[in-house]
């Protein structure tokens, strides 16, 4: 028994050494990438070119389901972005609340005939509307079919060669689209571009704009600020250098429409349609040997509301991880296949054996360590020391995300916010991390039972925060 415990313990240690070494590699790769990206972001010639009429026209797709609280502010903010040629297609996905009424009232909608070809299948469309006050706006009212279905309906109705999927509760910064088109303007063969999603909770918001970014004082949203920084600022930047991103956030990602149409749009049977679509794009374009890049640009920013309660967080994390498991299972044929290049040899294995299996191995490590201590085969001081070293490594990764934020973007100017970020980076590993491991572990159970569905995300709406100073 003791030998088994020792062997399993050693395997868990080796697993985490390999995984953490890969994280360290991502971290190292993120450095030259952020250096390059910040230099490009500051290039005024490029900005002037982007501000000219030269950048390609874009269709912004906004699926909305029960978004009554935030829809007007979000759409108003999207309609006033700094970009010359774009349209906004809002899809009311059979909302049960007053989303459609709110849109009618706010934008003075009138019905128009449908003249677009329905290339991608979607649930029946009840009506198509345009706005008397906002010429860029198109609203599709359709029967409920989920986010992917709504995006497919919006792609059908879109007119422009680039489409950007945006969540209705997401606040896009005015210059974010200009910045997001930088890879296109630079002439890269881009299939998709992702921007940074940041946490809006606690920030000062007015008229659908984040006026002053703040780190929320509450633990749960606060710790997610650190998580998002880590995920976007070194995870995805690192992947830019390691062969392309596998994730373009569904809340803020720009795609070339012709490729989306070629792969049949978003899959309605996937609960992480953003992840699924990027994996399929990689597969399709590699199969066809089409040169392409799927990249991440850090300076365009969209702000989103993150869960403030454990129940909502649990549903969200379970769904994300369940989606990861199902997607990795569905596309396991890409694993280690040379034809898929670094995506097959690095990206897919990392997401399968690193991201997907990590909660299982972590819990196994806790159980085996406890068993080892109970059986007396593990030295208590060494076990404690190992635990602390593991937690400290997690802390270093989080603080590295904060360093990249400070060096590259400095959105949180107050010393108090910086202090909070550091505090949450330290506290994240005591309780929160274990909690999310548990949620992700539950996802294995629900994935086996193949329970789909999004879970409910209760929106509170973007009320002016920071003590209402900006209201």
């Amino acid at each position: 028994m003791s030998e088994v415990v020792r062997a399993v313990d050693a395997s868990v240690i080796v697993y985490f050494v390999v995984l953490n070494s890969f994280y360290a590699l991502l971290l190292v790769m993120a450095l030259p990438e952020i250096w390059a990206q910040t230099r490009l972001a500051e290039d005024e010639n490029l900005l002037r070119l982007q501000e000219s009429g030269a950048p390609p026209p874009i269709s912004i797709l906004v699926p909305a389901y029960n978004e009554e609280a935030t829809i007007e502010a979000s759409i108003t903010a999207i309609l006033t972005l700094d970009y010359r040629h774009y349209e906004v297609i809002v899809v009311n996905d059979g909302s049960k609340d007053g989303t459609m009424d709110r849109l009618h009232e706010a934008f003075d909608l009138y019905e128009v005939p449908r003249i677009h070809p329905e290339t991608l299948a979607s649930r029946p469309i009840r009506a198509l509307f345009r706005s008397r006050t906002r010429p860029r706006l198109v609203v599709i009212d359709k029967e409920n079919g989920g986010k992917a279905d709504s995006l497919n309906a919006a792609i059908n109705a879109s007119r422009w060669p680039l489409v950007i999927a945006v969540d209705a509760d997401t606040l896009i910064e005015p210059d974010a689209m200009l910045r997001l088109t930088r890879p296109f303007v630079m002439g890269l063969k881009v299939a998709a571009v992702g921007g940074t999603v940041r946490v809006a909770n606690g920030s000062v918001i007015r008229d659908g704009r984040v006026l002053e970014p703040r780190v929320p004082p509450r633990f749960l949203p606060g710790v997610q600020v650190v998580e998002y920084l880590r995920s976007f600022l070194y995870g995805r930047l690192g992947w830019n250098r390691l062969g392309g991103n596998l994730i373009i956030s569904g809340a803020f990602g720009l795609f070339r429409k012709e490729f989306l149409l070629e792969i049949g749009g978003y899959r309605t049977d996937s609960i992480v349609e953003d992840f699924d679509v990027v994996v399929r794009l990689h597969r399709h374009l590699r199969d066809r040997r089409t040169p392409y890049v799927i990249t991440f640009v850090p300076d365009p920013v969209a702000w989103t509301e993150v869960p403030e309660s454990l129940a909502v967080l649990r549903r969200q994390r379970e769904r994300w991880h369940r989606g990861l498991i199902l997607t990795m299972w569905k596309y396991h044929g890409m694993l280690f296949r040379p034809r898929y290049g670094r995506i097959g040899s690095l990206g897919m294995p990392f997401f399968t054996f690193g991201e997907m299996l990590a909660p299982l191995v972590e819990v196994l490590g806790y159980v085996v360590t406890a068993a080892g201590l109970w059986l007396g085969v593990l030295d208590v001081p060494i076990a404690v020391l190992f635990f602390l070293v593991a937690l400290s490594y997690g802390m270093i990764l989080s603080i590295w995300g904060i360093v990249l934020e400070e060096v590259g973007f400095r959105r949180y100017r107050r010393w108090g916010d910086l202090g909070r970020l550091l505090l949450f980076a330290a506290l994240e590993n005591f309780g929160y991390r274990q909690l999310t491991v548990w949620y992700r572990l539950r996802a294995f159970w629900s994935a086996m039972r193949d329970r789909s569905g999004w879970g409910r995300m209760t929106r509170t709406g973007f009320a002016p925060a920071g003590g209402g100073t900006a209201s």
Partner: protein
Amino acid sequence: MTSRDLLIIVAVGQSVTLAALLGAIGVNRWIRQRRRARVLPRRVVLDQAMNGWALGEIGPELVARALEDLPTADAVEALVGWAGRLRGERWQALAQALDQRPWTARLRAAVRARAWWRRLQAARFLSVAATPADAGLVARLLGDAQPAVHIAAGAALERIATPHLVRIVIGRMPEMAAPVQAHYASVLRTTHGVVVPLLVERLGQVYDPGLPRIVEFAGRFGDAGLREAVRALAGHSNQEVRVQVARALGDFPHTASIAALRTLTTDSAWEVRAQAVRALGRIADSVTLPDLVARLGDSVWWVRLRAALALTRLGAGGRDALLTAEIGSQPDARFVARLILGLTPQALTEFAA
């Protein structure tokens, strides 16, 4: 070494790393604050000097000196910012005044730097301060593999568009993305005397695989001197060339263009027909009414839609044609006419864009 020793070493290493990261965050903030405090007053002095020079109160020498006091990156940024507001001979005088300064000599030397961001800084500087003597440096930057560098250098063509430089740009045109093409079309517009003969020469190379992009650029450039060269390609065997010709001819309203476009409305490729009827809609000459009406019955939906939209731009004649089609015998034409007639003027404007 025991596992405990190893773990202690790792823990010590982590502690040092953590302390270093925290220190880096603090030092980074401190350095930035100090730098801002140091640069800001100098930037104010520069802006005052620029304002004085713009009003003719001081000479460019004082501006050059104020620029010299700034860190190079800030000086380049300030120059690029002011270049958008001040142009012409006065700006040339400043460029001359900056010509022999040590910091500008270093920037010019950076054209050959290995690091692309140093070449980018050089390109940004030359984009606003290049003199005819810099043509060789600009030529080198225009061929740079980093897109940001050659885009920045492209702006220098507004000041020094020699035939050699324009030839380099046209040579790279087939590999350029549409937005970059549009950028070059805009910076080269002031020097059409140099650009047009070179473009006409390139348009004459009918077997050039990059020809579609050259025709596209010619359309963007929109100079009347290019019309005949573009029109001559209307019968080209490559479909993509004909698509670009049809699109470009919409920017050259002329009887010769209309004649070519009328022929292209019956092209075997629907993409060409769609672009041709769209271009005829932009030219909006009533003589093309029968061609557009005929396309209402096209076998491809997009061509029918474009033809109906084009008819809405032909005034009362076009509207009458749509009303006739709406009650006509052709089901496809009837449907598209009903669709377009049902749109509000606002929606119509947007769809016709």
